[in-house]
């Protein structure tokens, strides 16, 4: 009975969709995926269709220029699917549990770690040696470290656009001029400037956002010496939470907050809210990300044509040196599932995409059509570049690590404000950059397990100490709690890997 009706329903459904999708829909959903036949005769067929699972993006990758270009340049017919923007991890579990026949998956580090340790991914060492000449050339020895689990490589690392500094403090220069103030160079001067602005202008001196730990830290924290997640203390790693510098930084911030120099709504403020306050002329200083610069600056000049903005050089610490933390490391992990029917072909496809000429075309298109070269810089040709390549990064499966940072900058040069802020930030950060000692570590189980929970704990407590909800004298209590809830375990795991690298 049930079986009958199920078949009936399916037949009906197929009938309905076939009837409905008949009109001009080139890609109807009626064709359900054929069940894999027991005979593996398909492996000898030329260039099988590959199914690639991407992370969420707002486009239909099967219709996108880059998606079609990849098919054309590699010769592999590719079908793209995407994880949803919401609950991608749950969906991924469903797909893997059901052994959805994907051949390539683009994963974030948590997803990669989970699948690799569950034995769902194919180890790639042999394939790299046998079929991956381009991949070998494109990717640094160091980057491979991040995709090794128990000494075996389980994914191709994608490191993105190289080291780039994304945020720096900006200030209303017109107000500084009006009050006869200089751009502050260290935290004491910053305090004086903020105080004067508060007294004379009656605006919010400094706005910020509580979106993440990084958005609370930044320039001011770096001046106190709080930069990387982990600090190397004579060969052992300590988390930033346990450093005296963090306490100093929070004490300073609490002083600013108490005296009304930081936006009193900081614990509720998102970056959108902060930008709102800065661009509507209610605030004097904000740590801006360069990719938000066009919006922010355009809105500000629209509201107040006389407004002038300058970028505050990274603040110097007590020793007179400035430093900037740059988030680096592997962003994406390109893996081949164990149950894929086309492992070798999938790997060949990934290797083909990293052939230098093909990679370049997929990254920034064709010279003369999508970009031009002016004194060694790649300049996008608009609007063609945006129309075709706006979403090209999502299609990447590993990058040519030598050249991609240079190619990628074409993306920034599509807007003069964007370009100027991006270049200014990078220029200011030259020679000051510090990176995390764990930037290229593979996913470490103790960290993967605890990080999310502890980051939340750290963020909440930092906000409490800044706003004075908790007195700073309680800081050691918080550290003890942090350690008990997994901080100790995390530190152990971090050090175990760190020592193993030293040998």
């Amino acid at each position, binding site marked *: 009975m049930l079986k009958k009706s199920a078949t009936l329903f399916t037949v009906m*459904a197929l009938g309905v969709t076939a009837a409905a999708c008949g009109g001009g829909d080139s890609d109807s959903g009626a064709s359900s995926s054929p*069940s894999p036949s027991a005979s593996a005769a398909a492996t000898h067929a030329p260039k099988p269709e590959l199914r690639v699972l991407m992370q969420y993006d707002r486009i*239909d990758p*099967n219709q996108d220029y880059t998606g079609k270009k990849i098919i054309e340049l590699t010769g592999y017919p590719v079908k793209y699917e*995407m994880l949803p*923007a919401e609950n991608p991890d749950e969906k991924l579990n469903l797909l893997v549990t059901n052994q959805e026949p994907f051949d390539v998956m683009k994963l974030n580090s948590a997803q990669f770690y989970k699948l690799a340790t569950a034995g769902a991914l194919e180890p790639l060492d042999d394939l790299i040696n046998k079929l991956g000449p381009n991949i070998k050339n494109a990717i640094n020895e160091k980057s491979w470290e991040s995709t090794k689990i128990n000494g075996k490589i389980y994914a191709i690392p994608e490191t*993105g656009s190289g080291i780039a500094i994304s945020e720096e403090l900006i200030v209303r220069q017109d107000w500084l001029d009006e009050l006869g103030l200089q751009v502050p160079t260290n935290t004491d001067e910053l305090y004086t400037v903020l105080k004067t602005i508060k007294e004379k202008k009656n605006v919010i001196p400094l706005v910020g956002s509580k979106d993440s730990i990084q958005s609370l830290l930044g320039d001011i924290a770096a001046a106190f010496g709080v930069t990387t997640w982990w600090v190397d203390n004579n060969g052992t790693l300590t988390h930033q939470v346990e450093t005296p510098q963090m306490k100093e930084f929070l004490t300073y911030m609490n002083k600013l907050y108490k005296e009304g120099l930081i936006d009193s709504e900081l614990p509720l403020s998102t970056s959108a809210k902060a930008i709102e306050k800065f*661009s509507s002329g209610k605030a004097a200083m904000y740590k801006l990300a360069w990719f938000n610069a066009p919006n922010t600056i355009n809105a500000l000049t629209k509201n107040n044509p006389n407004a002038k903005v300058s970028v505050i050089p990274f603040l110097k610490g007590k020793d007179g040196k400035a430093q900037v933390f740059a988030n680096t490391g592997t962003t994406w992990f390109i893996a081949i599932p164990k149950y894929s029917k086309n492992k070798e072909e999938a790997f060949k496809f990934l290797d083909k995409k990293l052939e230098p000429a093909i990679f370049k075309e997929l990254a920034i298109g064709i010279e003369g059509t999508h970009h031009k070269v002016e004194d060694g810089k790649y300049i996008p040709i608009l609007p063609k570049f945006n129309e075709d390549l706006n979403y090209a990064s999502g299609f990447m499966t590993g990058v040519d690590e030598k050249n991609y940072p240079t190619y990628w900058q074409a993306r920034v040069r599509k807007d003069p404000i964007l370009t100027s802020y991006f270049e200014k930030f990078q220029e200011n950060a030259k020679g000051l950059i510090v990176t995390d000692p764990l930037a290229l570590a593979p996913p470490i189980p103790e960290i993967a397990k605890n990080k999310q929970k502890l980051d939340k704990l750290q963020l909440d407590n930092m906000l409490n100490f800044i706003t004075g909800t908790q007195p700073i004298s309680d800081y050691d209590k918080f550290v003890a709690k942090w350690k008990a809830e997994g901080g100790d375990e995390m530190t152990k795991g971090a050090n175990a890997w760190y020592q193993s690298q030293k040998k």
Partner: protein
Amino acid sequence: MKTASSPSAVSVAGKSKPKTGIRPTLPERIFNVFNYVFFTLMGITTLLPFVNLIAKSLSSEAAVISGIVNLWPIGFQLGTYKFVLQDAAFMNSMKISIFLTAVGTALSLFMTTITAYPLSKPRLRGRKWFLLMFIFTMLFSGGLIPTYLLMHKLHLVNTLPVLFLPAMVNVYNMLIIKSYFEGLPDSLEESAKLDGAGNLRILFFIALPLSLPVLATIALFFAVYFWNDYFNAMIYISNPSLKPMQLFLKELLLSSGDFMRNETLNVDAALNTSPQSIQAASIMIATVPILLVYPFLQKYFVKGVLVGSVKG
């Protein structure tokens, strides 16, 4: 078996009660005025977010970012709407949604109605047991993962039918239609039988035309359900070409401003965020079609169609 209903059972709508003649006292009137004012204001409050959204969608991006747009557009422009309507991915999802709503509503209404009709007849053998089976599914279900596995085994994952086939018979709506059918006078069926009509003819030519109000209501429920359903699509659809609009929209809104996933900054996502005014325009375009359905169904929400079909 009930006999033919007494005339009093046939309610005559539209005839208001005669006034009692007592004029409301002053305090009563003050209370009434206050009531009207209060509830009018309440009503307007619910509209405000919507008005704000319309204003945002018509304002310049600079004004929206500065947070100065309230109920009236600042820096009026229509570029956002133009942009959204030219966005291939958005329009494709719109097409999917319209198809889903049309086909889903028609099929569900049909299936639910033909399920409800026999269940409304006391002479159906094992009616209680059938009803129990249906109501059981209202209270208990296999859960998400088993349901997913079932859909997977039926090869429905990543196809459009997965979004309307499982929802074809909605038990709650079925019960509403069933109780409406039960309210139809038995004498109608009897007289039709005497005239030689079979069960199907009675259903399609007598019961259904008399049930337009309830059918219209349920059709609206279904249409709104299919139009607004993003959850099933999120679970079953990973092929981007098959995303219905609500899912597309939800992801669009979710993904903006979230480039700090697992704290590796996704610069490219940051560079590609949609401006807030575009987001507002997308929401408007996604909401208006389903709002337009209401006035068209309005005319069926009338009572008293039964008057005169049976002599009292």
